């Protein structure tokens, strides 16, 4: 059984796969980290059974799957936040606004914005070393959509890696570093990184700068960088008994395993709704094409039920 895709979702899938294989010895489960985009490409070519994704499937990917006759069951599995992290020695980085993030990462910033004080005058007159998720990753897509307003629009001259561990290494070893990475990876490495609260300058959901935490992510006050992450199961693969068992195992143990790897669980009610979807083999996407910035899962799933 093959899974591939987002490196954000990887820790969750890896945990589930490991636990599953303990009680199901005969089944071989591999989990790759080609990035959300890479995972969908393989998925829509029929090469893998389950795609890990840290963003919803896009319209063009739905089309590609349609062309190859791949039907999918969309299943949110956790909440994640995108954390803005700096080195613990960077005392000046007390908070950051969405507008400032945009200044830093926008396409126009390439080759231009190279120093901290170009973003905020009170910051040091020193180089800034930027790190961020790789371009094949849902984290990257989601971040650029949320901050720049357009997916995949960013500067190209920063250390961009599909492997989030590289980002943690880079930021934790460099005084002048700043980067965006999945909150789960921050939690895992909290001693080595410093979290920067984000101010979205919208009064309606908690004023001021908000730090990501399981709470603020779940309730949606950490905006705009909270999002659901998904697995997409191929309907054909779901007919195989081992795949069905795996997905059911996933749902049953999601809340505990998700918390273990430092992500935020969806809560038993939503997991129930998602399990239901799988049991009924409900294909198609509810999230695709929607801007999931600022929307909670139960709202979307209920919308679907109502239809």
């Amino acid at each position, binding site marked *: 059984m093959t899974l591939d895709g987002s490196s954000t979702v*990887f*820790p969750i899938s890896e945990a589930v796969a490991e636990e599953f294989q303990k009680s199901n010895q005969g089944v071989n489960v*591999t989990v*790759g*980290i080609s990035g959300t985009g890479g995972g969908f490409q393989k998925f829509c070519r029929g090469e893998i059974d389950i795609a890990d994704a840290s963003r919803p499937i896009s319209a063009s990917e739905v089309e590609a799957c349609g062309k190859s006759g791949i039907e999918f069951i969309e299943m949110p599995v956790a909440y994640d936040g995108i954390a803005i992290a700096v080195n613990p020695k960077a005392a000046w980085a007390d908070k950051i606004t969405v507008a400032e993030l945009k200044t830093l990462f926008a396409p126009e910033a390439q080759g231009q914005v190279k120093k901290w004080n170009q973003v905020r005058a009170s910051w040091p007159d020193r180089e800034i070393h930027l790190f961020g998720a790789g371009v094949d990753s849902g984290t990257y897509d989601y971040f650029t959509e949320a901050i720049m307003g357009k997916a995949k629009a960013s500067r190209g001259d920063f250390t961009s890696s599909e492997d989030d561990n590289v980002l943690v290494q880079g930021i934790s070893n460099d005084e002048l570093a700043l980067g965006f990475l999945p909150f789960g990876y921050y939690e895992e*490495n909290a001693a080595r990184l410093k979290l920067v609260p984000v101010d979205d300058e919208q009064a309606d959901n908690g004023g001021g700068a908000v730090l990501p935490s399981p709470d603020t992510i779940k309730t949606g006050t950490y905006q705009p960088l909270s999002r659901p992450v998904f697995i997409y199961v191929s309907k054909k693969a779901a007919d195989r008994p081992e795949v069905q068992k795996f997905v059911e195992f996933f749902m049953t143990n999601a809340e505990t395993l998700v918390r273990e790897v430092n992500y935020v669980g969806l809560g038993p009610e939503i997991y129930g709704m998602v399990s239901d979807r799988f049991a009924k083999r409900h294909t198609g996407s509810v999230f695709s094409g929607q801007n999931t910035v600022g929307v909670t899962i139960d709202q979307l799933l209920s919308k679907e039920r109502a239809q």
Partner: protein
Amino acid sequence: MRKHADLIFQMVSLSALLVALAALAALVFDIVSDGAGRLSFQFLTSIASRNAEDAGVYHALMGSIWVIALTGALALPIGVAAAIFLEEYGSRSGTARFIELNISNLAAVPSIIYGLLGLGLFVRLMGMGQSVLAGSATLALLALPVVIMSTREALRTVPNSIREGSYALGATKWQTIWNQVLPMAMPGVLTGLILALSRAIGETAPLITIGALTYIPFAPDSIWSKFTVLPIQVFNWVSRPQPEFKANAAAGILVLMVLLLSMNAIAIVVRDRQQRRGRI
């Protein structure tokens, strides 16, 4: 005055050498101190895991063994055949010289280029996929120049009197080679093969390029399996920032080095046995 300059120069050049040796010692010390504590039976028999304490090298070790065995099986016959041709049949013809030039160039091509060749040719064009076979084929190409060059050396050590004696008895060229020359050269051939394989077992870049995965929860069960190898597992662990994985990486390196040193030791023993035998 000159004597002083000479002495100083001698000290300077000796220190250059000693600094290199000291750095090597630092490397060994660093790895042993980081990793020795982690080495255990559990480490060797566990599979990779998200928990550093549970993670082990079993599947990577199996993968390495499969890949090296297959690489040897591919490189030995082809390499020996090529060396026999160049040494016994080739003479100084233009073709032979051209082939020799190719071989010595190939010996110096960066290993990642072999990876690209493997990706384009074995994985994609010939459809082997990201399998043990594709990995071994790629490493076999990498190992061939070394096998060929050391086999030629071994063939050269066989005295001509052996060959002439065989011809005098009416044997054909091939019969001479197969029955007389090759058996005598075998120890040298094997030494060369083992040395080539000990280089191959540490190769990471070409296998990453052809797609050896980093999360493989099973050992290969056929040449068509996906796989991972020890150096790639070490690479994966080094990339993880948690310090517990650093210990794993160091322990993985120790396993790799033990394998490597054993292979080198076997090669040396084989060569010594030959040297004690082969006086005719």
